[in-house]
């Protein structure tokens, strides 16, 4: 038997994360994380990104600062996060209690041909911790996803970054709407705001 535990299944991780999401708002990083969240079922508090690479976590920060009593969860991939590593520092300075950034880390750029990502060498959770985010976790077991789900759907003592090691399997693409205007209208209505 190998001493290395099997890496987690991305769909199972996201499904568990969002099972009891309550009124949490979810922002998805382009590519597979967008499909993973869509695979859990469409939701009027989902913000699907199909571009804006590097912007997922910091867009979630803007939402979290605007809605301090509502949990906000960014679900993104290692490649998308690597393009916006500076946003860890920006988040650390603001330290919102209602923001969790979940990085699904398979160590490759799945959308573009499976090229190795820097996370093979670079420890993204350690980067987050070094920027001053107190709760930075590396997760390799489903039991820890349970604890993460509890944290992500409630308010903590500060922001949380969780890097979840997932396997490299490519899953069925579940494609949510690409109409950002429709998403804008739906999310704002769900929050009781005017649409424009």
């Amino acid at each position, binding site marked *: 038997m190998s001493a290395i535990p099997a890496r987690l299944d991305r769909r199972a991780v996201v499904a568990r994360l969002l099972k009891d999401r309550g009124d949490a708002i979810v922002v998805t990083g382009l590519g597979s994380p967008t499909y993973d969240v869509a695979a859990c079922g469409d939701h009027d508090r989902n913000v699907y990104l199909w571009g804006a690479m*590097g912007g997922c976590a910091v*867009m979630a920060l803007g939402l979290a600062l605007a809605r301090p009593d509502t949990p906000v969860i960014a679900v993104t991939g290692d490649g998308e996060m690597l393009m916006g590593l500076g946003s860890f520092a920006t988040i650390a300075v603001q330290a919102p209690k209602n923001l969790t950034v979940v990085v699904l880390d398979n160590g490759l750029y799945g959308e573009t041909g499976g090229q190795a990502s820097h996370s093979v060498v670079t420890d993204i959770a350690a980067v987050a911790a070094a920027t001053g985010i107190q709760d930075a976790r590396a997760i390799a077991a489903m039991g820890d996803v349970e604890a993460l789900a509890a944290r992500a759907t409630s308010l903590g003592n500060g922001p949380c970054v969780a890097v979840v090691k997932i396997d490299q399997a490519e899953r069925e693409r579940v494609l949510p709407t690409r109409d950002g205007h429709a998403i804008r209208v739906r999310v704002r209505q769900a929050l009781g705001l005017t649409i424009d």
Partner: protein
Amino acid sequence: MNAMHPQATHASPAGWPMDIFAGLKAAGVRQVAYVPDGGHAALIRAVHDDPGMVAIPLTTEEEGVALVSGAWLGGDRACLLMQSSGVGNCINMLSLVRNMGGPFLTFVTMRGEWGEFNPWQVPMGTGTPDAFRLMGVHVMRADTPDAVGPTAAAAIRMAYEGGSAVAVLLGQQLIGAKVFVK
């Protein structure tokens, strides 16, 4: 200019940065994201000192584009302060503003266009208006202290009441060329 009726070109007593601040306050802007710039220093200080505002220092300008979009989705009015050298960094992230709509407002202090000592500032200074226009951002401009307040007010109205994407360029003559002392 008519010598009998010299045109008054005075700034308000508090100076033009405070005219922008007053406009943002009047519009209920809460989140103000910025990459530091000397020309914006007084405004940044005022935002930090205001308990009704959240000042958000960024590591790079494109973070601000995503952040203000998220802020507005959540019900906050937000804006971005930067200098012209950061505008190019925002190009792809502005696709978020184009695709989701909603207001976008940025105030840009211009470098590299008026007596600039540092040639490394000139290419992006020259390209700043075109960079915004490439991505569909409406560009406005103020070059004199007394023009800043009305331009800011017009831009604020277009962004938050009209839902437009607007950039206000603050000419380098407002700030003066940075003096490098050896």
